[in-house]
């Protein structure tokens, strides 16, 4: 009875499985094809290197006209990500375009880990530390990565 899943979502999901992006994975839930378990590796050379971050991603009813809803599940020390895992990223908000896709959004998030932007903070405390004592902030980010984002199992 349910409205069928748009072809766009089916194709995007297939391409994510068949042509995966290194360091990124997104798997839809069996019972909800619009809900994805996402894994993003911290980019090499950043203070998140070696970390494996889990995120949840949801495609709203009018996707791709509106951006996917996405949030970090793994705790992360980053000026543009708050305690609830919400991400401050222009392409997830006003700069979303229906020509973007899950793949490009996850790459943007990975790039955000490589280039924290304390000038446009979501987490004021982290951003303050980042601006005042960057070395200390990076150290904390490394510690958190080791503590919360080290691959289990």
């Amino acid at each position, binding site marked *: *009875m*349910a*409205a*069928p899943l*748009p*072809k*766009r979502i089916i*194709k*995007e999901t297939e391409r994510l499985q068949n042509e995966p992006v290194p360091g990124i994975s997104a798997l839809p839930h069996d019972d909800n094809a619009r809900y994805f378990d996402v894994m993003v590796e911290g980019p090499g050379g950043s203070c998140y290197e070696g970390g494996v971050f889990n995120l949840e991603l949801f495609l*709203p*009813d*009018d996707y*791709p*006209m*509106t951006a996917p809803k996405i949030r970090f599940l793994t705790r992360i020390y980053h000026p543009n990500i708050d305690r609830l895992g919400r991400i401050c990223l222009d392409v997830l908000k006003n*700069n979303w*375009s*229906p*020509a973007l896709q899950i793949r490009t959004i996850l790459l943007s998030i990975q790039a955000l880990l490589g280039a924290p932007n304390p000038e446009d903070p979501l987490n004021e405390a982290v951003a303050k530390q980042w601006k005042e004592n960057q070395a200390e902030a990076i150290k904390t980010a490394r510690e958190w990565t080791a503590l919360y984002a080290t691959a289990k199992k």
Partner: protein
Amino acid sequence: MSRDETLSEKSTAVGLAPYEDARALVRLIQCTQCSRPLRQPVTLPCGNAVCRACLPDFHERANISYPDVPARRRGVMCPFPDCGREHPASDCGVDVILSKALDSIAGIMAEHTMSASMITTIMEEIRLDDTEALDADSEKPKINKRPWSRLVATYDIAAKGQLPYECDINYIHSTSTSDTGRAMDAAVLQEILDSMHREVDCQICYNVLLDPVTTFCGHTLCRKCMARAVDHSLHCPMCRRSLAIPPVLSRHPSNCTLINLLNAMYPETMTSRAEAVATEETGGEGELNTPLFVCTLGFPHQPTLLRVFEPRYRLMIRRCLESNREFGMLMYNRYGEPQGDLGPVHFYHYGTMLYVTNAQPFPDGTSLVETQGAYRFRVKAHDVLDGYSIGSVERVEDVSLAEEERLEAEETALPPAEEGDVAGHIDRMSTQELLELGQDFVRRMQGRSAIWLRQRVLDIYGQPPDDAALFPYWFASVLPISDEEKYKLLPTRTVRERLKITASWIRRIESQRW
């Protein structure tokens, strides 16, 4: 071919065969100006394409003061006689998708023309019968010879500038090689189809482009995808440039080069795609095919005026106008009251089907939609389609006249109600008395110049109807009481029941007054 056949073929795409229709296939990608395969094609605002180099020289446009942006100050005269208008320079961007498609065709053709094949194609040029072209008749027909199969040979003479756009070709028959040639052309076309396939997908729906429209910055989407993108943002989804596209896309011409090319090359895909879209837009093949607008209360035979601004409802109204112009209006269930089998859904499950009588779009993309209530319905099941609700609905009909009469006779024969039992008293009134009670009330209120009966209101809703079945809908439309109270009219099955509800409102208002 009869006229009927021509018409029926318009709805389905007709493919072209690589061998038999080689000339026609090559013409699809020839520039009308230079006759070579289009190079860096520009799709103009009129939907026609020319090579960038074939555009006439830009000139300063005269008498243009709005919008005064540098790129619009210069323009070209459209080289297509069926258009002939002036296009601003800013609207002449290279068509990205067409460009890529032509590049992949050129690449494949280049490979095939690297070496000679066993086949020779001899082509005799036939000039179109033109009354003025008397000189052409005196010339000997030009003969071209190429060591490849028809499609490749024809492309090659076009690429060399030896095949004028309007010329046809007489292929000089050679029986020994026609089967091999046919097979080779089929293989070449298949190669082109495979390589072009990914280029001609819409970047929004990921399907092959259906009725493509091209922005002035050269980006192409399906018309319906473009319309949805414009609902959300007036920027190009591809390059974010501000789109000078009117909110009503229907007047924006399609990219006819791409349409003709896709129809000729992927006829089955294009036909089934058009059919699939029609099904998808109504929510699939199931019963969930009524678009639902959860917003306000509407009544049968009464007008409802809506200001549509949310992107999802702009889409819904647009689809509505393309189909039967009807959608279901439901009231928002703000207290989360249970709705029968559906449970505490976000809407009240009885609603009114509205028919769009007029939709006035504004430049900012919002629109004013005038509707007329058609009939009442109940939602049996619901789902979401592209952000708005859809449902399967069941009409709510009044009982038969015989049953209506039986009920009236039964209730009016009851022993008199006790003093002060307002509801009991209303129950025993005849249907005609109930109507008169309402009409009297309206007359009295008009006498007292009630605000809700001012001329402005009556101009919209009209005078109170004489029909007892409809009076309550009119009364509810003008009476200033809560929508939750008025909603009680929607599930009713008899005229009496509705009139009894309006009578109870009147008694309550009267009791508050003194």
